[in-house]
Protein backbone atom coordinates (compact mmCIF):
# COMPACT_ATOMS: atom_id res chain seq x y z
CA UNK A 1 0.00 0.00 0.00
CA UNK A 2 1.23 3.43 -0.86
CA UNK A 3 0.94 6.16 1.69
CA UNK A 4 -1.41 8.87 0.51
CA UNK A 5 0.64 11.74 -0.93
CA UNK A 6 0.93 15.04 0.91
CA UNK A 7 -1.95 17.31 0.00
CA UNK A 8 -0.96 19.87 -2.63
CA UNK A 9 -0.09 23.40 -1.63
CA UNK A 10 -1.75 26.42 -3.23
CA UNK A 11 1.38 27.02 -5.27
CA UNK A 12 1.15 23.50 -6.60
CA UNK A 13 -2.46 24.01 -7.62
CA UNK A 14 -1.42 27.11 -9.58
CA UNK A 15 1.43 25.17 -11.14
CA UNK A 16 -1.03 22.49 -12.17
CA UNK A 17 -3.24 25.03 -13.93
CA UNK A 18 -0.19 26.55 -15.66
CA UNK A 19 1.28 23.23 -16.71
CA UNK A 20 4.30 23.75 -14.49
CA UNK A 21 3.71 21.07 -11.89
CA UNK A 22 6.52 18.51 -11.54
CA UNK A 23 5.16 15.13 -12.73
CA UNK A 24 5.76 13.49 -9.37
CA UNK A 25 3.17 15.76 -7.76
CA UNK A 26 0.50 15.24 -10.36
CA UNK A 27 -1.05 12.37 -8.50
CA UNK A 28 -1.37 14.39 -5.31
CA UNK A 29 -3.16 17.21 -7.14
CA UNK A 30 -5.48 14.90 -9.04
CA UNK A 31 -6.24 13.13 -5.80
CA UNK A 32 -7.14 16.41 -4.09
CA UNK A 33 -9.29 17.48 -7.06
CA UNK A 34 -11.24 14.23 -6.91
CA UNK A 35 -11.62 14.35 -3.17
CA UNK A 36 -12.34 17.97 -2.43
CA UNK A 37 -15.06 19.75 -4.44
CA UNK A 38 -13.96 23.13 -3.09
CA UNK A 39 -10.44 22.63 -4.46
CA UNK A 40 -11.86 21.36 -7.74
CA UNK A 41 -14.08 24.44 -8.07
CA UNK A 42 -11.23 26.81 -7.36
CA UNK A 43 -8.96 25.15 -9.89
CA UNK A 44 -11.75 25.05 -12.49
CA UNK A 45 -12.28 28.78 -12.02
CA UNK A 46 -8.56 29.45 -12.55
CA UNK A 47 -8.64 27.35 -15.69
CA UNK A 48 -11.62 29.26 -17.03
CA UNK A 49 -9.94 32.55 -16.19
CA UNK A 50 -6.76 31.47 -17.92
CA UNK A 51 -8.65 30.47 -21.06
CA UNK A 52 -10.60 33.73 -21.08
CA UNK A 53 -7.40 35.79 -20.76
CA UNK A 54 -5.77 33.92 -23.62
CA UNK A 55 -8.79 34.53 -25.84
CA UNK A 56 -9.09 38.17 -24.87
CA UNK A 57 -6.66 39.69 -27.38
CA UNK A 58 -5.69 36.43 -29.06
CA UNK A 59 -6.56 37.87 -32.47
CA UNK A 60 -3.50 40.12 -32.26
CA UNK A 61 -1.27 37.08 -32.66
CA UNK A 62 -2.53 36.54 -36.20
CA UNK A 63 -2.62 40.17 -37.25
CA UNK A 64 0.14 41.44 -39.50
CA UNK A 65 2.63 43.64 -37.70
CA UNK A 66 1.54 47.29 -38.11
CA UNK A 67 3.69 49.36 -40.42
CA UNK A 68 4.86 51.83 -37.72
CA UNK A 69 6.36 48.97 -35.72
CA UNK A 70 8.11 47.51 -38.72
CA UNK A 71 9.25 51.06 -39.42
CA UNK A 72 11.17 51.13 -36.14
CA UNK A 73 13.24 48.18 -37.25
CA UNK A 74 13.79 49.51 -40.76
CA UNK A 75 14.84 52.92 -39.45
CA UNK A 76 17.21 51.41 -36.97
CA UNK A 77 18.79 49.31 -39.64
CA UNK A 78 19.26 52.34 -41.84
CA UNK A 79 20.75 54.33 -38.94
CA UNK A 80 23.11 51.53 -38.07
CA UNK A 81 24.27 51.54 -41.68
CA UNK A 82 24.91 55.31 -41.62
CA UNK A 83 26.46 55.73 -38.22
CA UNK A 84 28.59 52.65 -38.24
CA UNK A 85 30.24 52.28 -41.62
CA UNK A 86 32.39 49.53 -40.21
CA UNK A 87 29.29 47.40 -40.13
CA UNK A 88 29.06 47.72 -43.87
CA UNK A 89 32.75 47.13 -44.21
CA UNK A 90 32.32 44.06 -42.05
CA UNK A 91 29.63 42.80 -44.37
CA UNK A 92 31.78 43.47 -47.38
CA UNK A 93 34.70 41.74 -45.77
CA UNK A 94 32.58 38.69 -45.13
CA UNK A 95 31.42 38.79 -48.72
CA UNK A 96 35.00 39.05 -49.92
CA UNK A 97 35.96 36.09 -47.81
CA UNK A 98 33.19 34.05 -49.32
CA UNK A 99 34.25 35.15 -52.77
CA UNK A 100 37.81 34.35 -51.85
CA UNK A 101 36.85 30.88 -50.67
CA UNK A 102 34.93 30.34 -53.89
CA UNK A 103 37.87 31.49 -55.94
CA UNK A 104 40.17 29.26 -54.03
CA UNK A 105 37.96 26.27 -54.68
CA UNK A 106 38.25 26.92 -58.38
CA UNK A 107 42.03 27.31 -58.25
CA UNK A 108 43.87 24.32 -57.00
CA UNK A 109 47.22 26.09 -56.99
CA UNK A 110 45.99 28.39 -54.20
CA UNK A 111 45.15 25.58 -51.88
CA UNK A 112 48.09 26.26 -49.61
CA UNK A 113 47.24 29.80 -48.56
CA UNK A 114 43.70 29.42 -47.24
CA UNK A 115 44.81 26.36 -45.40
CA UNK A 116 47.25 28.47 -43.45
CA UNK A 117 44.59 31.11 -42.89
CA UNK A 118 42.28 28.49 -41.48
CA UNK A 119 44.89 27.00 -39.23
CA UNK A 120 44.24 29.23 -36.22
CA UNK A 121 40.57 28.41 -36.39
CA UNK A 122 41.23 24.74 -36.86
CA UNK A 123 43.37 24.86 -33.74
CA UNK A 124 40.41 26.04 -31.70
CA UNK A 125 39.37 22.78 -30.05
CA UNK A 126 35.73 23.76 -29.56
CA UNK A 127 35.31 24.52 -33.24
CA UNK A 128 37.17 21.40 -34.37
CA UNK A 129 35.02 19.32 -32.06
CA UNK A 130 31.89 20.95 -33.41
CA UNK A 131 32.74 20.29 -37.04
CA UNK A 132 33.61 16.69 -36.28
CA UNK A 133 30.30 16.22 -34.44
CA UNK A 134 28.46 17.69 -37.42
CA UNK A 135 30.13 15.23 -39.74
CA UNK A 136 29.45 12.25 -37.47
CA UNK A 137 25.80 13.24 -37.04
CA UNK A 138 25.48 13.51 -40.80
CA UNK A 139 26.92 10.05 -41.38
CA UNK A 140 24.80 8.46 -38.66
CA UNK A 141 21.42 9.89 -39.58
CA UNK A 142 21.30 10.56 -43.32
CA UNK A 143 21.26 6.85 -44.33
CA UNK A 144 18.22 6.23 -42.10
CA UNK A 145 15.23 5.16 -44.16
CA UNK A 146 12.51 5.06 -41.54
CA UNK A 147 13.69 7.51 -38.88
CA UNK A 148 15.99 10.07 -40.45
CA UNK A 149 14.52 12.81 -38.26
CA UNK A 150 12.72 13.11 -34.95
CA UNK A 151 10.25 15.73 -36.13
CA UNK A 152 9.26 15.81 -39.78
CA UNK A 153 9.00 18.86 -42.01
CA UNK A 154 5.20 18.65 -41.85
CA UNK A 155 5.47 19.99 -38.33
CA UNK A 156 8.01 22.64 -39.18
CA UNK A 157 6.66 25.24 -36.77
CA UNK A 158 6.70 22.84 -33.88
CA UNK A 159 10.15 21.63 -34.90
CA UNK A 160 11.58 25.14 -34.90
CA UNK A 161 9.94 26.08 -31.60
CA UNK A 162 11.09 22.91 -29.95
CA UNK A 163 14.70 23.11 -31.10
CA UNK A 164 14.86 26.86 -30.37
CA UNK A 165 13.75 26.15 -26.85
CA UNK A 166 16.21 23.34 -26.35
CA UNK A 167 19.11 25.32 -27.77
CA UNK A 168 17.92 28.41 -25.93
CA UNK A 169 18.34 30.38 -29.12
CA UNK A 170 15.82 31.42 -31.76
CA UNK A 171 16.44 29.17 -34.75
CA UNK A 172 15.26 29.40 -38.31
CA UNK A 173 15.09 26.82 -41.05
CA UNK A 174 16.79 28.21 -44.14
CA UNK A 175 14.87 27.88 -47.37
CA UNK A 176 17.13 25.92 -49.72
CA UNK A 177 14.46 25.20 -52.31
CA UNK A 178 16.08 27.46 -54.91
CA UNK A 179 18.90 24.91 -55.01
CA UNK A 180 16.45 22.00 -55.11
CA UNK A 181 16.62 20.97 -51.46
CA UNK A 182 13.57 20.63 -49.26
CA UNK A 183 13.40 20.09 -45.52
CA UNK A 184 13.05 16.50 -44.30
CA UNK A 185 12.94 17.49 -40.64
CA UNK A 186 15.20 17.81 -37.67
CA UNK A 187 16.46 16.31 -34.50
CA UNK A 188 18.03 17.24 -31.21
CA UNK A 189 21.53 15.97 -30.44
CA UNK A 190 23.90 16.19 -27.50
CA UNK A 191 27.09 18.16 -27.96
CA UNK A 192 30.21 19.01 -26.02
CA UNK A 193 28.85 22.43 -25.08
CA UNK A 194 25.14 21.71 -24.85
CA UNK A 195 22.26 20.86 -27.12
CA UNK A 196 22.73 20.77 -30.87
CA UNK A 197 20.18 20.76 -33.65
CA UNK A 198 20.38 18.97 -36.97
CA UNK A 199 18.16 19.93 -39.87
CA UNK A 200 18.11 17.52 -42.79
CA UNK A 201 17.35 18.45 -46.40
CA UNK A 202 16.87 16.30 -49.46
CA UNK A 203 16.84 16.92 -53.19
CA UNK A 204 14.65 15.21 -55.79
CA UNK A 205 17.23 12.46 -56.24
CA UNK A 206 17.20 11.70 -52.52
CA UNK A 207 20.63 13.25 -51.88
CA UNK A 208 20.70 14.47 -48.30
CA UNK A 209 22.56 17.31 -46.70
CA UNK A 210 22.47 18.45 -43.09
CA UNK A 211 22.72 21.76 -41.30
CA UNK A 212 24.16 21.33 -37.83
CA UNK A 213 23.75 24.14 -35.29
CA UNK A 214 24.93 24.63 -31.75
CA UNK A 215 26.44 26.97 -29.28
CA UNK A 216 30.22 27.17 -29.06
CA UNK A 217 31.29 28.02 -25.57
CA UNK A 218 33.93 30.63 -26.05
CA UNK A 219 36.63 29.19 -23.87
CA UNK A 220 39.31 31.66 -22.99
CA UNK A 221 41.93 30.14 -25.23
CA UNK A 222 39.95 30.25 -28.43
CA UNK A 223 37.48 32.98 -27.62
CA UNK A 224 38.26 35.03 -30.69
CA UNK A 225 37.97 32.14 -33.09
CA UNK A 226 34.75 30.95 -31.45
CA UNK A 227 32.94 34.23 -31.79
CA UNK A 228 32.99 34.88 -35.46
CA UNK A 229 34.50 33.47 -38.60
CA UNK A 230 33.99 33.52 -42.30
CA UNK A 231 33.32 30.29 -44.17
CA UNK A 232 35.70 27.43 -43.69
CA UNK A 233 35.86 24.17 -45.51
CA UNK A 234 36.52 20.95 -43.65
CA UNK A 235 37.33 17.82 -45.59
CA UNK A 236 39.03 15.73 -42.94
CA UNK A 237 35.79 14.38 -41.43
CA UNK A 238 33.69 11.51 -42.69
CA UNK A 239 31.90 13.91 -45.01
CA UNK A 240 33.02 17.35 -46.14
CA UNK A 241 31.38 20.44 -44.71
CA UNK A 242 31.40 24.18 -44.82
CA UNK A 243 31.16 25.81 -41.44
CA UNK A 244 31.08 29.24 -39.89
CA UNK A 245 30.67 30.83 -36.49
CA UNK A 246 28.34 33.72 -35.85
CA UNK A 247 27.84 35.36 -32.46
CA UNK A 248 28.99 32.31 -30.54
CA UNK A 249 26.90 29.93 -32.60
CA UNK A 250 28.43 27.35 -34.89
CA UNK A 251 26.86 26.27 -38.18
CA UNK A 252 27.99 23.41 -40.40
CA UNK A 253 26.53 22.37 -43.74
CA UNK A 254 27.62 18.82 -44.51
CA UNK A 255 27.02 16.58 -47.48
CA UNK A 256 28.65 14.21 -49.94
CA UNK A 257 28.77 16.81 -52.64
CA UNK A 258 31.43 18.48 -54.75
CA UNK A 259 32.90 21.44 -52.93
CA UNK A 260 31.37 24.10 -55.13
CA UNK A 261 27.88 22.62 -54.77
CA UNK A 262 28.32 22.47 -51.02
CA UNK A 263 29.59 26.03 -50.96
CA UNK A 264 26.54 27.23 -52.87
CA UNK A 265 24.29 25.53 -50.30
CA UNK A 266 26.27 26.92 -47.38
CA UNK A 267 26.20 30.41 -48.87
CA UNK A 268 22.45 30.24 -49.33
CA UNK A 269 21.97 28.88 -45.80
CA UNK A 270 24.17 31.63 -44.38
CA UNK A 271 22.21 34.28 -46.23
CA UNK A 272 18.89 32.83 -45.12
CA UNK A 273 20.00 32.66 -41.52
CA UNK A 274 21.61 36.04 -41.10
Amino acid sequence: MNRPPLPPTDDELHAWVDGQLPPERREAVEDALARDPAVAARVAAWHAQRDALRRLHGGLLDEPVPAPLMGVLERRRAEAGRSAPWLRWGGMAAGLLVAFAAGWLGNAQWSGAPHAAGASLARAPAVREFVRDASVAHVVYTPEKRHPVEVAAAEQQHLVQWLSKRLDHPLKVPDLSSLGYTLVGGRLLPGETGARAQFMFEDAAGERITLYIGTLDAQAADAAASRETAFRFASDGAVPSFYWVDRGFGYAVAGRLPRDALLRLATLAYRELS
Partner: protein
Amino acid sequence: MDARLLVEHIPSLRRYARALTGNAWAADDLVQDTLERACGKWRLWVVGTDLRAWLFTVMHNLFASQVRRRPPPHAVVPLDDVAPEQLQGGVDPGLGLDLQRCLMQLPEEQRAVLLLVTLEDLSYAEVAKVLGIPTGTVMSRLSRARLRLQELMDGAAAPNRPGLRRLK
Protein backbone atom coordinates in the same frame (compact mmCIF):
# COMPACT_ATOMS: atom_id res chain seq x y z
CA MET B 1 21.65 43.29 -35.07
CA ASP B 2 19.22 41.23 -37.04
CA ALA B 3 15.83 42.89 -37.01
CA ARG B 4 14.27 39.72 -38.31
CA LEU B 5 14.91 38.05 -34.98
CA LEU B 6 12.73 40.68 -33.35
CA VAL B 7 9.90 40.55 -35.84
CA GLU B 8 8.61 37.16 -34.83
CA HIS B 9 8.16 38.33 -31.24
CA ILE B 10 6.14 41.42 -32.09
CA PRO B 11 2.69 39.75 -32.10
CA SER B 12 3.10 38.38 -28.59
CA LEU B 13 4.58 41.66 -27.35
CA ARG B 14 1.52 43.43 -28.75
CA ARG B 15 -0.92 41.06 -27.10
CA TYR B 16 0.79 41.33 -23.74
CA ALA B 17 1.02 45.11 -23.96
CA ARG B 18 -2.64 45.37 -24.93
CA ALA B 19 -3.79 43.35 -21.95
CA LEU B 20 -1.36 45.14 -19.68
CA THR B 21 -2.31 48.69 -20.67
CA GLY B 22 -5.90 48.02 -21.72
CA ASN B 23 -5.52 50.51 -24.53
CA ALA B 24 -4.67 49.84 -28.16
CA TRP B 25 -2.69 53.03 -28.69
CA ALA B 26 -0.79 52.88 -25.43
CA ALA B 27 -0.01 49.25 -26.13
CA ASP B 28 1.50 49.82 -29.55
CA ASP B 29 3.41 52.82 -28.19
CA LEU B 30 4.84 50.57 -25.54
CA VAL B 31 5.77 47.95 -28.14
CA GLN B 32 7.36 50.65 -30.28
CA ASP B 33 9.41 51.95 -27.34
CA THR B 34 10.40 48.39 -26.53
CA LEU B 35 11.65 47.78 -30.06
CA GLU B 36 13.54 51.09 -30.10
CA ARG B 37 15.17 50.26 -26.80
CA ALA B 38 15.95 46.70 -27.86
CA CYS B 39 17.60 47.92 -31.06
CA GLY B 40 19.58 50.53 -29.14
CA LYS B 41 20.67 48.18 -26.40
CA TRP B 42 21.12 45.16 -28.61
CA ARG B 43 24.51 44.47 -27.14
CA LEU B 44 23.01 43.97 -23.70
CA TRP B 45 21.26 40.87 -24.93
CA VAL B 46 23.43 37.92 -24.03
CA VAL B 47 23.66 35.72 -27.09
CA GLY B 48 22.35 32.27 -26.44
CA THR B 49 19.87 33.43 -23.81
CA ASP B 50 16.16 33.60 -24.47
CA LEU B 51 15.52 36.62 -26.70
CA ARG B 52 11.80 36.59 -25.89
CA ALA B 53 12.39 36.80 -22.13
CA TRP B 54 14.85 39.63 -22.70
CA LEU B 55 12.32 41.57 -24.79
CA PHE B 56 9.70 41.20 -22.09
CA THR B 57 12.22 42.41 -19.55
CA VAL B 58 12.87 45.50 -21.68
CA MET B 59 9.14 46.06 -22.03
CA HIS B 60 8.51 45.61 -18.35
CA ASN B 61 11.18 48.14 -17.41
CA LEU B 62 9.69 50.70 -19.78
CA PHE B 63 6.19 50.08 -18.50
CA ALA B 64 7.30 50.33 -14.89
CA SER B 65 8.99 53.68 -15.52
CA GLN B 66 5.89 54.97 -17.34
CA VAL B 67 3.74 53.98 -14.41
CA ARG B 68 6.12 55.69 -12.03
CA ARG B 69 6.12 58.87 -14.10
CA ARG B 70 2.38 59.32 -14.28
CA PRO B 71 0.37 57.09 -12.02
CA PRO B 72 -3.08 56.72 -13.53
CA PRO B 73 -5.71 58.27 -11.25
CA HIS B 74 -7.80 55.20 -11.67
CA ALA B 75 -7.47 52.62 -14.31
CA VAL B 76 -10.24 53.09 -16.81
CA VAL B 77 -10.61 51.45 -20.19
CA PRO B 78 -11.93 53.84 -22.77
CA LEU B 79 -14.60 51.69 -24.32
CA ASP B 80 -13.93 53.04 -27.76
CA ASP B 81 -10.55 51.45 -27.64
CA VAL B 82 -11.87 47.96 -27.40
CA ALA B 83 -13.77 47.45 -30.60
CA PRO B 84 -15.81 44.24 -30.64
CA GLU B 85 -13.95 42.97 -33.68
CA GLN B 86 -10.73 43.08 -31.68
CA LEU B 87 -12.13 40.49 -29.37
CA GLN B 88 -12.02 36.87 -30.30
CA GLY B 89 -14.88 35.43 -32.26
CA GLY B 90 -17.33 33.44 -30.22
CA VAL B 91 -16.66 35.46 -27.12
CA ASP B 92 -19.33 37.75 -25.82
CA PRO B 93 -17.87 41.22 -26.42
CA GLY B 94 -19.33 42.32 -23.13
CA LEU B 95 -17.38 39.60 -21.39
CA GLY B 96 -14.17 40.76 -23.07
CA LEU B 97 -14.82 44.33 -21.98
CA ASP B 98 -15.52 43.19 -18.45
CA LEU B 99 -12.42 41.08 -18.35
CA GLN B 100 -10.17 43.87 -19.57
CA ARG B 101 -11.85 46.35 -17.23
CA CYS B 102 -11.39 44.04 -14.26
CA LEU B 103 -7.80 43.38 -15.26
CA MET B 104 -7.15 47.10 -15.12
CA GLN B 105 -8.34 47.16 -11.55
CA LEU B 106 -5.58 44.81 -10.47
CA PRO B 107 -2.40 46.46 -9.22
CA GLU B 108 0.13 46.63 -12.09
CA GLU B 109 2.52 44.23 -10.46
CA GLN B 110 -0.14 41.57 -10.09
CA ARG B 111 -1.42 42.12 -13.60
CA ALA B 112 2.06 41.72 -15.06
CA VAL B 113 2.66 38.41 -13.26
CA LEU B 114 -0.74 37.01 -14.20
CA LEU B 115 -0.34 37.97 -17.86
CA LEU B 116 3.23 36.76 -18.26
CA VAL B 117 2.30 33.39 -16.76
CA THR B 118 -1.00 33.07 -18.59
CA LEU B 119 -0.32 34.55 -22.01
CA GLU B 120 3.35 33.87 -22.48
CA ASP B 121 3.68 30.51 -20.78
CA LEU B 122 6.85 31.71 -19.12
CA SER B 123 7.93 29.52 -16.22
CA TYR B 124 7.60 31.04 -12.76
CA ALA B 125 11.39 31.33 -12.61
CA GLU B 126 11.47 33.15 -15.96
CA VAL B 127 8.76 35.55 -14.82
CA ALA B 128 10.79 36.22 -11.68
CA LYS B 129 13.79 37.09 -13.85
CA VAL B 130 11.81 39.29 -16.23
CA LEU B 131 10.28 41.26 -13.37
CA GLY B 132 13.37 41.20 -11.16
CA ILE B 133 11.58 39.72 -8.16
CA PRO B 134 11.96 36.47 -6.19
CA THR B 135 9.98 33.43 -7.36
CA GLY B 136 8.10 33.40 -4.06
CA THR B 137 6.81 36.88 -4.86
CA VAL B 138 5.71 35.68 -8.29
CA MET B 139 3.65 32.97 -6.63
CA SER B 140 2.02 35.26 -4.09
CA ARG B 141 1.19 37.89 -6.73
CA LEU B 142 -0.18 35.24 -9.05
CA SER B 143 -2.35 33.87 -6.29
CA ARG B 144 -3.66 37.28 -5.31
CA ALA B 145 -4.23 38.28 -8.93
CA ARG B 146 -6.31 35.20 -9.67
CA LEU B 147 -8.38 35.59 -6.55
CA ARG B 148 -8.98 39.30 -7.06
CA LEU B 149 -9.79 38.97 -10.76
CA GLN B 150 -12.28 36.26 -9.91
CA GLU B 151 -13.98 38.51 -7.35
CA LEU B 152 -14.07 41.41 -9.78
CA MET B 153 -15.53 39.29 -12.55
CA ASP B 154 -18.14 37.85 -10.22
CA GLY B 155 -19.11 41.39 -9.33
CA ALA B 156 -19.18 42.47 -12.96
CA ALA B 157 -21.38 39.53 -13.91
CA ALA B 158 -24.10 40.85 -11.65
CA PRO B 159 -27.22 41.60 -13.71
CA ASN B 160 -26.85 45.34 -13.50
CA ARG B 161 -23.94 46.79 -15.38
CA PRO B 162 -24.75 50.44 -15.49
CA GLY B 163 -22.40 52.68 -17.37
CA LEU B 164 -20.57 49.83 -19.02
CA ARG B 165 -21.68 50.61 -22.52
CA ARG B 166 -21.63 54.07 -23.85
CA LEU B 167 -23.96 54.84 -26.67
CA LYS B 168 -22.59 56.83 -29.50
